[in-house]
């Protein structure tokens, strides 16, 4: 019952926003901002870039909203726009300066039990490896892990066949698995 009501009002907001109602659009932005900014953050890895990309995405959404089919999934449509906006923002940024890998690597190393430290290292390692993945497989992995979309949804968001979703996801996770393995190898060698 509550779900139906939410869907109903969302549909109403979409239709109002399509007519040019800025307040209705503002409400849609407030509702979807969090999921959009989280996904673009995982694409970019920086808060400022992510918020720029999110802003870009919502601006594009506002302009293209009249062509949106109101009964389709708005969040997935926003993801589609947001992933492209994130890639654009990253491209623009890479033209201005090269990312400083070192600053990302040496982050605050809080003292703690060794196991937690290793896990924290691994988490950071994977975030860096994620950002170094090719755009195509990174988009698929981000939508899967952080957008929590099904393969079918990813296929329609990125406009690719479902087989391509699977192969890109295989590539991405296997690549990260290798990074993790070689890191473990290095740690062993260092201890030996």
């Amino acid at each position, binding site marked *: 019952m509550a779900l139906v009501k939410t869907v109903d009002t969302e549909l109403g907001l979409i239709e109002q926003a*399509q007519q*040019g109602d*800025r307040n209705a*659009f*503002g409400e849609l*932005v*407030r509702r979807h*901002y*969090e999921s959009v*900014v*989280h996904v673009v*953050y*995982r694409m970019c890895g920086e*808060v400022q870039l*992510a*918020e720029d990309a*999110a*802003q870009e995405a*919502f*601006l594009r959404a*506002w*302009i*293209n*909203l*009249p*062509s949106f089919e109101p009964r389709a999934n708005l969040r997935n449509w926003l993801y589609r726009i947001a992933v492209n906006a994130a890639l654009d923002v990253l491209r623009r940024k890479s033209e201005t300066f090269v990312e400083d890998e070192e600053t990302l690597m040496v982050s605050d190393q809080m003292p703690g039990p060794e196991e937690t430290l290793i*896990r924290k290292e*691994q*988490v*950071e390692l*994977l*975030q860096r490896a*994620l950002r170094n993945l090719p755009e195509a497989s990174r988009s698929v*992995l981000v939508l*899967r*892990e*952080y957008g929590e979309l*099904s*393969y079918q949804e990813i296929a329609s968001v990125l406009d690719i066949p479902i087989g391509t979703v*699977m192969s890109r*996801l*295989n590539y991405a*996770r*296997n690549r*990260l*698995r290798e990074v*993790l*393995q070689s890191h473990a190898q290095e740690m062993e060698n260092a201890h030996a």
Partner: protein
Amino acid sequence: MHEDMRALLNAYLDGELHGWRLLEVQNHLTSCESCRNELRELRAVSDLLRAAPLPEFTPAERFAANLALRLPRRPLKAQLQRGPSLTWWLAPLALMGLWFFVQTLIWLTTVLSLALSGGLLGESFSWISGSAAQSNLFAFLMNLFGGHLGTATQSTLSLLDRLVLFGNSLINQWFWQAIVALLYWLWMAVWWLRTRGRAFLPRLARA
């Protein structure tokens, strides 16, 4: 077999396998240790990715307020991108219905007049042909001069008159067909402008 199953491990991990494929992978996993290890590692990758902490972002309320200041006036062409209304889509259907109606009418009158002039329908229908088979002018002329003309001349003139009548009705029919076609083409042109033209018009405006 093992390689086929390896390619499905991610889909298995994501709960995207169903039916016999799911059973196949489950069966293979019970017997293949290397696949079990790989699945465990893939799951670790997924868990580590999801464990990454999120930083603080601008709160939604402030983000939306900032965005509102930057929203441009939506261009008019964007508002036209909505699909045409139902009546819009039904217009050609109505036109085609009209077209068929006119065609059927033409066909019926042609058949009927042929049948009448051939006498196929017999005497009982002659009242139809009474008015249709000769013009008022012809009847008037016949009343005035009919007595002075021979039967052969009379029937020749009558045939000519019928031909003129038939021609007139054809021109009438063509006129209506042309109107219908014109309306249909007009509809097509507007439809084209509203869809294809959208991509086309801004370029023209900029040039």
